[in-house]
């Protein structure tokens, strides 16, 4: 009986922990993302390969931002259940959304820090840096890398 309590209790505890800690982390992350996106919204960021012809480019550099977000126990449990019957893996959507937006933010922050005015030719890459499937251990996490060409524009006199 104690065995059964233990076997049921540990996953339930981990589920609760994952749910509460994961929700808190996610909410505070989204708060920070929204504030910073608002602050940086004026910087043109585009995936165009060339700057618009009328821009007078003074200097360029590569800027990159990368974010690694971990899954929590609750999200993984939801995704596993989802894996039985198919459909949108909603619990992982916010994970990728956060990673993508955080990576872009970091890239833009790097550009701002260097005194650049815009980022063009932005590319996004994503990698899962650990798979929980290989040996049932490990933490599933996703990395999103955003990189682009930062431009410094000549101020028109």
């Amino acid at each position, binding site marked *: 009986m104690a065995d059964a309590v233990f076997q*049921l209790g*540990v996953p339930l505890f981990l589920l609760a922990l994952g749910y509460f800690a994961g929700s808190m982390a996610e909410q505070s992350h989204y708060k920070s993302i929204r504030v910073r996106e608002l602050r940086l919204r004026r910087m043109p960021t585009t995936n165009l390969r060339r700057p618009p012809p009328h821009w007078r480019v003074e200097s360029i550099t590569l800027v990159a931002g990368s974010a690694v977000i971990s899954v929590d126990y*609750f999200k993984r449990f939801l995704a596993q259940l989802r894996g039985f*019957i198919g459909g949108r893996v909603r*619990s992982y*959507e916010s994970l990728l959304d956060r990673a993508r937006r955080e990576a872009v933010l970091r890239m833009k922050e790097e550009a701002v820090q260097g005194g650049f005015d815009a980022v063009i030719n932005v590319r996004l890459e994503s990698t899962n840096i650990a798979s929980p499937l290989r040996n049932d251990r490990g933490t599933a996490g996703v990395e999103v890398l955003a990189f682009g060409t930062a431009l410094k524009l000549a101020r028109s006199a």
Partner: protein
Amino acid sequence: MEPLENNVSLEHPLAELATLVLGIALIGLGILAAAWLAVEGAVRFLPASVEQRVFAGATGRRSPELEALLERLARHWPESAYALKLGIVPLDIANAFALPGGQLLVTSTLLEQAGSENELAFVLGHELGHVTGRDPLRGLGRGLLVSLALAAIGGAEGASVAGSVAALGERSFSREQESAADRFGLALVAAEYGHVAGASDFLRKLPDADGEASVAGRVVGWLATHPRSADRVAELEALAAQRGFPTQGALTPLPPGLRGP
């Protein structure tokens, strides 16, 4: 420009959890119920002769005195389709098991602790009751089913949760089988000795049947978990009163060859 945020679903994660758990549980229960019925059908359909051919292996030390006792008891159950086999296994717990194929096992500790032949006869009768109910075969089928279900679920978390739930479900189910086996055993004892004195002695010795049975359960995978021994004793007394079995009578001593190994 406010970001749209349309890459994330608005559904609350707990709502999704509830939907997924309930939906999958319903589907799983449906499949399990169908498989359960299939096992039940197979148990009914499979002739005892085939079962005995499949589970032919005999285990345990043989004892002519014990076999003679079993034979006397089995004579009150003439319609048995099984050629019964009986063995003694050296285990530290006092218990007896019914295996598929009409094979009975008695632990050496049970023999050492037995105070009378009547007590032993009830234990054997109880296991014979499992054989009549075809419980070992059914248990094997169900065990197989549970293992398959767990294998299908696969994930470590899922398996441990489902394992505990399955164990609880199996426990509550087998109490029915245990009670039926008790009733059968008591009727055999009454038919053999003319009274049921001493029949519940073995049950009275068990401090808490749950603890004892869980140890045994690990030894023999499909062994049913027994209900609380106090409840069983009460049930036996009620049955004896109802069927008019005399509860007083002279106890038959154990045959000399059965005292210890």
